[in-house]
């Protein structure tokens, strides 16, 4: 159910798009209205979510320290895994966001007779995760060719690099392969690895299928089923210049592709995909480990919470304290004259 429903949902969305383009006005709806709505939902939802996080304070400074902290001058600090300055944190965040530093640490534990535990290196998730994200990024940037006229030079360079294998016509983009391959790996991994299978929810499979749908329709369009690229470019430029129009017969496949992209944008802010924003705000990563050097302020710190007072403590134990020669702030009430005990007596050696 957790796999099938999201799969069926994506199939259903494809069918909806397929039918939609055939009914009058359907193309405008999918090609013009929906993209605007999707962009609106995405940016609005994204901003709303991030502001929602930002609205909650960070009461305590709780970085996870993953290396030696700042200490005595001759002890070498691990400035990236346990930063104590702004620039250190910036470095740590860059490593985290751009290279998935934490995931790189991943190991795989296994238990053997003995009992004996072993921790093997396990970098596949890191490698494929990184591949997926960067491929996606390159593909998104490549799509800028549709919105720009003339195309900026860096896009040419990117396309050249991505097509460097020089296979096929039109030229095969490496990222297309990598994206689909990575998605399939992530999907199979969820199905096959017992632990991951057990924790996976429908909302983990859905984005996989959705993005896979987007990727496959995109690939079909580029390599196999002809669509009217000129018409698409006209529509794309029209969308960004707020004068969109659909010219000629672009092809249903394009609309399916666009429909799924719009769904992804709309779905994004309401889903786990918001890890894109969350990673920047995670207090265990984006805070400097300097809490003993610089006081961190908690806006809701309650000044009314005070410890059980020393006075109350001494009131309860004064007799014992005096008898044991522990100094007290208030002398015992009764034998007031003979009480030479007190701080002076305390200096005497303990019993023994």
């Amino acid at each position, binding site marked *: 159910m*957790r796999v099938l429903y999201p799969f069926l949902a994506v199939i259903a969305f494809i069918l909806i798009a397929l039918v939609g383009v055939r009914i009058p006005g359907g193309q405008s709806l999918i090609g013009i209205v929906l993209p605007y709505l999707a962009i609106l939902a995405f940016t609005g939802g994204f901003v709303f*979510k991030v502001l929602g*996080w930002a609205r*909650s304070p*960070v*009461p305590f400074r*709780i970085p*996870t*320290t993953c290396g030696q*902290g700042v200490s*005595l001058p001759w*002890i070498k*600090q691990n400035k990236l*895994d*346990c930063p104590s300055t702004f620039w250190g944190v910036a470095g740590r965040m860059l490593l985290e966001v751009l290279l998935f530093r*934490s995931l790189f*640490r991943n*190991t795989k534990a296994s*238990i053997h*007779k*003995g*009992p004996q*535990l072993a921790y093997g290196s396990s970098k596949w*998730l890191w490698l494929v*995760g990184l591949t997926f994200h960067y491929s996606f990024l390159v593909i998104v940037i490549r799509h800028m060719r549709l919105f720009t006229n003339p195309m900026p030079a860096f896009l040419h360079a990117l396309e050249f690099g991505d097509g460097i294998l020089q296979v096929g016509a039109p030229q095969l983009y490496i990222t297309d392969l990598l994206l689909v391959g990575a998605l399939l790996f992530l999907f199979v991994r969820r199905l096959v690895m*017992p*632990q*991951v299978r*057990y*924790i*996976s929810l429908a909302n983990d499979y859905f984005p996989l299928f959705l993005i896979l749908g987007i990727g496959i329709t995109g690939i079909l369009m580029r390599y196999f089923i002809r669509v009217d690229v000129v018409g698409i470019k006209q529509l794309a430029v029209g969308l960004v210049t707020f004068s969109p129009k659909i010219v000629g017969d672009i092809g249903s496949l394009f609309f399916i592709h666009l429909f799924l992209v719009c769904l992804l944008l709309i779905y994004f802010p*309401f*889903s*786990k995909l918001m*890890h894109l924003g969350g*990673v920047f705000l*995670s207090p265990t990563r984006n805070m400097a*480990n300097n*809490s*003993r050097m*610089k*006081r*961190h302020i*908690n806006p*809701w710190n309650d000044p009314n*919470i*005070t*410890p*059980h007072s020393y006075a109350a*403590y001494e009131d309860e*134990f004064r007799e014992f*304290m005096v*008898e*044991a020669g*522990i100094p007290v*702030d208030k002398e015992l009430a009764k034998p007031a004259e003979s009480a030479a005990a007190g701080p002076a007596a*305390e200096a005497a050696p*303990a*019993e*023994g």
Partner: protein
Amino acid sequence: MAVPKADKLGVSVTREPSLMTGAVPSKSWMDTPVEFKPGNFCYPAKKSIVEYHKFPNPRDWEPVADDWKLPANWKDIILQGIKERLDKFRSFKIFMDCCVRCGACADKCHFFLGTGDPKNMPVMRAELLRSIYRNNFTTAGKILGKLAGGREMTFGVLKEWFMYFYQCTECRRCSVFCPYGIDTAEITMMGRELLHLVGVNINWILEPAANSNRTGNHMGLQPHTIKDNIGYLCDDIEEITGVKITPTFNRKGAEILFITPSADIFAEPGIYTAMGYLLLFEHLGLDYTWSTYASEGGNFGLFTNNEMMKKLNGKMYAEAKRLGVKWILGGECGHMWRVIHQYMDTMNGPADFLEQPTSPITGTRFENAASTKMVHISEFTADLIKHKKLKLDPSRNNHRIVTFHDSCNPARAMGLIEEPREVIKAAANNFFEMPANTIREQTFCCGSGTGLNTDEIMELRMRAGLPRANAVQYVHDKHKVNTLACVCAIDRATLTSLMNYWVPGVEVCGVSELVGNALVMDGEKERETGLRFEPLAGEGE
């Protein structure tokens, strides 16, 4: 609740079908209810203790019972409690939203490794709470319900929380591996706070917390007993070294206030660590005082809720102020140092009545404690060693082949990693590291932290401690390691049980015990034994 023998448990850990041994449960976790039976839960807090704390819903109740005598509107209380905490803690909010269930954390948890129970995977532990969050606080969850991974708050869910938020020691190992830094310690803290709202809690935490509040320490030691106990330790020191030490208590005008976990002055093997402190301070002629009022380094509030943590911690600064000391020196303790390092200044500062800590012996200013004004004993000692201010004879520890257990909080919430190693290397000749995946920031918990070192869950503790024990076993076999050094009072207590169970022949000690053993004191007699009255290498063998 007899605990099975180690060899038997060892077989069952590796053979019994579990998610660790490759058996996949057929039913979804949402359809797998928890079952309480003797041995898998900690005893609930006594009614009188809950009343003492003025916590909600004091009563006598049983986890195994069908009726937990919850307040009629308990669901509303919980949901309201979640809302409040989402508004107060950004960490909680983000950690509820960001998880992609990549599974990187799954096999990083010592509880999961030792039990194979799927709900002990950190991601799953968080999902127990996240599913309620989704259902009630997210758009997708409100519309799609179960399909979006949401579920209703039910009594069954509450039972799950009680079970699994008390099978987490807030060690933060999972958060090292999480690509978004999701910290299960935060989730567990929230979970426990929520449980407190409806009167679901455990005695092993709340009674020590009550003791800490009233007597100043979790053991409930009264002032004269503290003085007596330390007196006995001084007697032993005199017998072993010939040096007479007379420490002071609650002395106004001392330069330094020294605070350590009360277990260090009360129970083996912590007391040997305390003897190490006493010898070190005597060796230096340090102008310091103990306090009977602030006589607990540990903070059971950290395991309870943030209000209790602040209340108990407040004594440290209050006493430092009353005594007019210049700064505070802290003993060896794990979670105590999480509170001091990451919370104390924020909660109870600013400590503007204290001075920036400066070692009176070396003149080193502890820049890293400039604001909080509290220094860790390992930092203090490492500095002394670097400046050659200690006369050490490491050969006195030649009978010890030492490895070092990084305690969770100093490693992952402070970055105190090299300092204790520097100290050990100066105080002992035989030192070997455990495998890289089990030390430093990847260190494994003792398995009994956050108030779980209670005997009624002994099997669980031994399972959770297995990853740590296993790494010790490795160096025990390879290098004949017989001493597990650590900087944590809970470790000293729990690792001792753990070693006795899994790796007999390995003793647990504080780093300062090694120092005390190696210190050449002025006017001492020739030592025949170590601080435990154990024969030294080459003596009496």
